[in-house]
């Protein structure tokens, strides 16, 4: 039967239409002969029509497609998106197995230290390329290319190719590059595609047992070794159920790669069958349990997202209370939330001033060989000194100290 059929399997990927920006729809009709035939409609045809055609030819060649008719409806997509959509269409046609059409890569940013500042992590839906390119400009500590909840089950395959290309081709500025994978076993496919591009952190959703972490860790280690990736790839677990919360410490300590743990409040409240309220009283226990487990494991505790993007005052209050509870960061669903959260997580000038005084007194005592640190007439306990040292270090990393100094003791506190 198949011998006479000219069209093997018609497939398509991506989106087009008047409301779509920075994406494209690709329809692929593989053939037995006749070479590559490209039909192109593009809102940027006058500027990049030739370039898009040349790229389509090249991508198809890299994927081993010699004969096909390809229809492209382009809404101003960037080259890394065009490559991803064509590759997705090819794979959906059951072709191009074992091949990848990788876009030109930008230099990798510096590797992440495990205790990096992670106040904000900006979620970017893995199927919406228009949000990728400028995400880093808004200054989040991290971006998350999300393959999980933000992606419809039917689009998982295309999203992981797009996210892989974004990891290669998009400059996210100083932001740490995170990817949220799907639950296993689907998540294995995500890892195969994205780990070769050395993301800084893999977010594991809906973790309930340490074994889930171990399974991800094992696969990450395998792929990283195979691809000779010589920089750390960290893990972050998201606990989204009552059981996950109960196992928080075991999960936090399951892997050397684990650097942070977060909570997903939508799923958690659903699991409990309670309403998620604005002030979050129903999840207070879970959040505190997670904070405690994370600190016990010497990793970071990060809060959920604040989903009302119109309510900046509510966000600010939530973030301030999160900091007060011991969280070190939050998720963001809109770039405008970033400066608000950064502000909330930054120690206040009064806190910094007080901490600097304590640190100065501590250094003075050290210098004089005194066992007791005192500030004025007050004796300072050791844990207070420790907390002050930590706060000054935090403030320094957030740029809240003004110009860097060689030691806090040099600052005149009069």
């Amino acid at each position, binding site marked *: 039967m198949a011998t006479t059929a000219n069209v093997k399997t018609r497939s398509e990927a991506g989106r087009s239409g008047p409301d779509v*920006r920075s994406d494209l729809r690709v329809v692929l009709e593989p053939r037995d002969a006749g070479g590559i035939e490209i039909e192109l409609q593009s809102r940027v045809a006058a*500027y990049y029509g030739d370039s898009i055609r040349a790229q389509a030819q090249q991508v198809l060649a890299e994927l081993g497609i010699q004969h096909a008719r390809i229809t492209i409806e382009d809404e*101003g997509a960037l*080259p890394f998106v065009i490559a991803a959509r064509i590759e997705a269409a090819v794979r959906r046609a059951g072709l191009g197995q074992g091949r990848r059409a990788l876009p030109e890569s930008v230099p990798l940013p510096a590797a992440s230290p495990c205790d990096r500042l992670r106040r904000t992590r900006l979620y970017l839906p893995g199927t919406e390329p228009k949000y990728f390119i*400028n995400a880093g*400009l808004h200054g989040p500590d991290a971006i998350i290319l999300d393959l999980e909840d933000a992606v419809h089950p039917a689009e998982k395959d295309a999203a992981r190719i797009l996210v892989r290309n974004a990891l290669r081709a998009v400059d996210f500025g100083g932001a740490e590059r995170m990817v949220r994978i799907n639950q296993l076993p689907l998540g294995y496919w995500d890892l195969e595609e994205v780990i070769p591009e050395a993301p800084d952190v893999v977010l594991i959703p809906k973790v309930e047992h340490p074994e889930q972490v171990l399974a991800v860790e094992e696969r990450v280690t395998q792929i990283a070794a195979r691809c000779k990736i010589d920089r750390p790839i960290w893990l972050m677990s998201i606990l989204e159920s009552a059981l996950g919360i109960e196992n928080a410490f075991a999960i936090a300590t399951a892997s050397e790669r684990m650097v942070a743990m977060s909570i997903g409040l939508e799923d958690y409240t659903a699991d409990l069958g309670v309403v998620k309220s604005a002030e979050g009283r129903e999840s207070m226990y879970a959040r505190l349990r997670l904070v405690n487990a994370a600190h016990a494991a010497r990793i970071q505790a990060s809060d959920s997202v604040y989903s009302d993007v119109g309510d900046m005052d509510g966000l600010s209050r939530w973030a301030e209370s999160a900091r007060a509870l011991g969280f070190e960061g939050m998720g963001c669903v809109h770039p405008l939330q970033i400066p608000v959260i950064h502000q909330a997580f930054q120690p206040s000038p009064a806190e910094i001033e007080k901490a600097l005084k304590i640190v100065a007194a501590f250094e003075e005592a050290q210098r004089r060989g005194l066992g007791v640190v005192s500030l004025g007439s007050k004796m300072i306990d050791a844990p207070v000194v420790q907390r002050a040292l930590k706060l000054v270090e935090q403030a320094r990393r957030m740029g809240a100290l003004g110009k860097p100094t060689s030691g806090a003791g040099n600052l005149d506190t009069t």
Partner: protein
Amino acid sequence: MNNGLEFAQNAAGRLVPIEVNGRKQAPFLGVGQRRPEGPKTAPLVRSARDYPANGDKRLPDLETALRACGLRDGMTISNHHHLRDGDAVALMALNTAARMGIRDLMWFPSASFPAQAGVIELMEAGVVHHIEGSMNGPLGDYCSQGKMRGLGVLRSHGGRWQAIQDGEVHIDIAVIAAPTADPFGNATGTLGKSACGSLGFALADSMYADRVIVVTDNLVPFPCVPWQISGNDVDCVVEVSSIGDPAKIVSGTTQITRSPDRLKIAEHVARFIRDAGIMRNGFSFQAGAGGIALAFVDYLRGMMKDAGVKARFVRGGSTRYLVELLREGLTDYILDGQTFDLAGVQSMASDPRHVPTSPFTSYNYHGKGFFNQLVDVVVLGATEVDVNFNANVVTHSDGRLLHGIGGWQNCLFAGCTILAVPSFRDRIPVIVDEVTTLTGPGEMIDVVATERGIAINPRREDLLSAVNGSSLPIRPIQDIQREVEKICGGKPQRPRLRQNPVAVVKWVDGTVLDTVWQVGD
């Protein structure tokens, strides 16, 4: 039609026709190089003996009025655009002319809007010969495709006044939509159900046209107070049920963009104004109603409050954001050229510190100075800007007519001109090697603020040193261009344009700055 034209290369190196619509043209000579001579044009002397002794100039309908004004083939009819996309009067006038069997009119609006797409049919039918005025949307496409019989002439708001007063354009009949008027012809835009605020764009028309018809849907007994158009210039008054769609005349509320990328640009602009030391007590600025312009005002407002700084005046395009500045005492005055939202209209009607202005006071280069020279900083848009800071605001990079010039060219004379633009739109880089259509010479553009950084014109060493050491992302313009071309996958192809001119862009002194060419198929 347009073939057989002779061209000359102007001082900006652009090829421009030396004759447009039968009138000789001076090619652009360089900024400040043309010295005009001779007197202004003057309207005919009229006498009260020819007008109703009781001052009641009402006529029953527009056709009667046009007939009374002697409308005939080949005349020039003008309209103002204060009713924006809600305007019904321009089409009403031209359609009435069509019913009267008139042909070959020149339509001379202060700007056109998509609501006036019906003029295309009138051009097809021969009623309208061509348009001299901004063209965008369907009219822009029609002109770009070379379908208009004459050449389009694009002028700035100040340039339109200049062309009228210098006698380059003679208006036979001005048809002025008036939200409120009295039977004598006094008219204002601040009152009535179709209120639009200022009527400044109609002022030159009322002063220089042979005949002036005021069309209103809110007739009040004499006197209409305040009057922006003086009834002493008006021939007749026509009452109609509606001059337009109030919902499209002003927006109920203007909203700041929520696009984080555009907000980033606005934030860069505001920080630049602050850190360059432009924001200081007694300073002044101009802002329009575009998304970035509104957002920058909001950022600047916070910075002014923090620093305890007050402006002496702001120039509008007024919106509720400017009105709030006025109410909070952050500016002494709003000098308003056009009014974009309801809050602006109400403020102008009730607050004497919110002053309507005209293109004569604000923009006209052929006067003894103009207000915009006194503005410290203006924030403008552009479709393209090149590495020498030359900018395009009228055509898309593919050559299609997209926007009118508006007050854009006139604003370039401010102390500091900032173009607030995204570094690319839909993969199309905004910073280019050479602009498709030159609308503003680079020597007058000081700063290009994008989401990826701020470029300062190297000519402005003072600004460069003013922001030296600040945390602003100051970068050479070529640097931003390179980054964006890398993101977009190389330099874009150049547009394929025909050798057929479809419009010209005038500079503020009436010389021809550039030519708009017919787009390819």
